[in-house]
């Protein structure tokens, strides 16, 4: 019972001698402090797993995220051209729906040499478009532009397009995909064994603006 809310029945306390009052006071204060301490301990024990749950997505190590995904048969990408391809993100969850799909630009430089660019502009992540005549990628958001090799051409981006690691497995082009590419989460994943080979849809005709 706190001092602020005196129970009328306890008003007899006032008749006690100061010493007796002090004794009672000390014991109650001690018990209350103990109860506060108890709650602090229980609260901390409760908070740690709650915070752990909240920070769950952060705890995963960057290198453990991502897998190799097939983009399709290499013959779908003619030498000297840059084409749009898409794949299912290997790190997508059950409820991701169509947001699990990812697009990327595939440039075939020679028979065995490719460049696979993230669709996300290095400035703020908007989807860049390829213009084959001027050999530029252009971003619709803030006007970032990149050359055909992904290098920065002009505008606000501070670097070139993000590139996926690729390899050719048999006849199919396979890239390593995971995090959404941003300045902090670019393709920093370590080499991983081939886990998933799944033919992905590729647009058969070169896409133009």
């Amino acid at each position: 019972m706190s001092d602020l809310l005196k129970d009328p029945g306890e008003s007899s306390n006032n008749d006690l001698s100061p010493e007796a009052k002090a004794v009672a006071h000390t014991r109650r204060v001690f018990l209350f402090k103990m109860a506060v301490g108890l709650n602090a301990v229980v609260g901390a024990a409760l908070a740690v797993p709650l915070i752990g749950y909240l920070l769950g997505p952060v705890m995963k190590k960057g290198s453990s995220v991502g897998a190799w995904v097939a983009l399709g048969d290499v013959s779908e990408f003619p030498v000297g051209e840059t084409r749009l391809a898409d794949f299912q993100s290997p790190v997508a969850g059950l409820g991701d729906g169509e947001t699990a799909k990812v697009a990327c630009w595939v440039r075939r430089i020679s028979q065995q040499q490719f460049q696979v660019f993230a669709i996300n502009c290095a400035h703020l992540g908007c989807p860049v478009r390829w213009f084959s005549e001027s050999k530029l990628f252009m971003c619709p958001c803030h006007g970032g532009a990149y050359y055909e090799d992904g290098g920065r051409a002009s505008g606000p981006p501070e670097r070139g397009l993000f590139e996926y690691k690729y390899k050719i497995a048999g006849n199919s082009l396979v890239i390593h995909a995971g995090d959404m590419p941003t300045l902090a989460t670019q393709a920093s994943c370590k080499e991983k064994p081939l886990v998933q080979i799944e033919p992905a849809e590729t647009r058969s005709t070169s896409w133009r603006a």
Partner: protein
Amino acid sequence: MASLKERATAAGLKSYQWLEDRLGLIKPMTEAAAHPTPANNASWWYVFGSAATVLLIMQVMTGILLALVYSPSANEAWKSLNVLNHNIPLGWYLRALHGWGSDFMIAIVLMHMMQVFLFGSFKFPRELTWIVGVLLLLLTLGMAFTGQVMRFDQDAYWGLGIGASIASRVPVVGAPLVHLMLGGPITGGATLSRFFTLHVFVIPGLLLAGVGVHVWMVLKHGVSDWPMPGRVVSKSTYEREYHELTLKTGIPFVPDAAWKDAVFAAAIIFAVMACAFFFGPFGPTGPPDPTIIQTAPKPDFAFLWIYAVLAFLPPSIETPVMLVVPVLGIAGLLVLPLLASEGERHWARRPVAVLMVSVIAVTLGIFTRLGTYTPWSPIMNAWTSAPVPVKYLHDRTPLERSGAIVLQEKQCRNCHSLDNAGGLRGPALDAVATRLTEDQLVRQVLQGGGNMPAYGNALNPSETKALVSFLMTLRGNDLEPAVNASQALTQTTRGSDAPKGLPATPAEQKP
């Protein structure tokens, strides 16, 4: 024998007494509503805060009704909005009310803030009221941003990408921040769930609690009196002066002052209803399919100015500006009442305050305007949709005309306009030959520079020759062609009445 009416009144009074004996809230609340307030603040300038509160209540109500149908899953959110728009009776109207209510709420909150700032009402003893108000503004903007994500269309999807890209620029903890924001490695179902939780549980809870504290402090300190030049706030005297003013001129807040609040709130709600009815709901735009890249994502109105600022920051200072300026700005707003808690309140005696409000308002207005037509973005289809004007093809040689074809085919028009058609990213080309000589044009096209990409790899020599010869014909209204210093030298030495020395700029050159 008492009449029926008297008995009914007595029964009503008795039930009220029964309720109030147990509840104990009606009397103190009635007294608080009727508290005396200085007559000079019963003004139409003092109505914004209550209107914002009424809008908040409307947002909560429409939000609850939308939640009956909305499905916060990445798979279904966009579809459920279309169901609301087209299949649920009046679903479109509820969405429109909620969307327009959000825009109105931001506008009214900003007006409220501007009024409080210009009237110096944030000074002693209302400093904490202002600080809580700043937090309420941030929460309101948080509601607007998370609400935009609820729409879960193309703009929402790529807008989240923009948010993640900004978060990724934070040093050291960039990657964990991105994962925390997205709820995983990519934008998807987990991201929508987090923003749904923020939009529906976390921020509204904080907002309602904050409004409670804000209103409590307004009641505790009273509505600020009308500022007068020369009536200076001093911590030692203000509260006594305010008390005396209230005693002398006080009128009950309800109804003598509050009727204006009520009229204004009704007008605002009616305006929201009218906008919702006539202009309808916002979106959703295309489905959140990341493989549909033919899109130009744009944030909602309240954030257009940020979108515009991000287009103009040079790459070298962009990250520091992005991360430091908002922190400084918010910190400045929070400490403002602590730094200026005393002194003049009237705007006529606070020129710096008036100047700040004007500069900030004009700046936000300009950037918002720019955000509506994004002159920094290439117009992706200009090369096929905006032909070279016929007048620029008259009396041209075949080489020059084939240069015009090169200009179109190489997508120059996406960034450069001719006769006001085409992109605004680069300068208009109508009079380019009056600014650059042939050599300079060749260099500019092949090597780029000044925010133009180099086209050396995209043009062969004959294309370059044709393009430049066409560009050389673009001299506006038959203006003089540009000349460089060496040309100027040969021309001036040839001329009989040549002035001594070189002209400083080609523009000063006389033929």
